[in-house]
């Protein structure tokens, strides 16, 4: 199971190779990519911060849960940090499985969970300012009172 938080460029072919298996009939990849706009504002670039060791730990927990829930053969989860330009890949996921449905459902679930609980943060930088984004789906926006 390939799990990594890195400042290096993410390479889809590495993630694909990591999940390949003779029993796999489907491989799904997801690339989260830096978009040139968000909520009607032009984005110049993004800056990602992370708590790398905990992020890798949580990514591994999510990947193991996805494997068990969706019957995946293997999965890979990589997140990039630092400054990312428009078009660059911030999140890279690969899953392998026997049949196609699990590749789509498992991949979708993985991305949803990553956005909830992996300690990574993005700052949007515009021509005229910048802002750290608080993910609307994050656990921090909906955790129980006992965690406050």
């Amino acid at each position, binding site marked *: 199971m390939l799990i990594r938080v890195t400042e290096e460029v993410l390479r889809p072919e590495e993630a694909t190779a990591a999940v390949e298996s003779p029993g796999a009939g489907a491989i799904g990849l997801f690339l*989260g990519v830096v978009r040139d706009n968000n909520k009607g504002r032009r984005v110049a670039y993004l800056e*990602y*911060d*992370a*708590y790398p*060791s*905990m*992020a890798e*730990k949580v990514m591994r927990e999510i990947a193991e849960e996805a494997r068990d829930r969706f019957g995946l053969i293997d999965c890979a989860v990589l*997140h990039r940090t630092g400054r990312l330009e428009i078009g660059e890949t*911030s*999140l890279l996921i690969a899953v392998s499985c026997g049949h196609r449905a699990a590749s789509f459902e498992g991949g979708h679930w993985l*991305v949803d969970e*990553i*956005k*909830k*609980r*992996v*300690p*990574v*943060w*993005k*700052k949007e930088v515009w021509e005229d300012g910048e802002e*750290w*984004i*608080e*993910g609307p789906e*994050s*656990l*921090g*926006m909906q*955790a129980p009172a*006992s*965690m*406050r």
Partner: protein
Amino acid sequence: MEITVLLFASVAEAAGARRLQLPIEHGDTVATVRDRLLAERPALARFAPNLLYALDEEYVDTAAPVHAGATLALIPPVSGG
């Protein structure tokens, strides 16, 4: 007795620090450490409503006891992906 506090993203920028060493007392919890930290650094108060806490890389309730040598991370709402 000390713990390490890690700060990230918006919180690190507001604090002007990514890592602090804080003294702790017997019986301290995540909540008591947090309250002391916010009293010392009022710039962090505005983040408090949405902060979560990780103790040694695990999300915890704020009632969790802290131990000497622990690492406490302040986690603003994540926005990876």
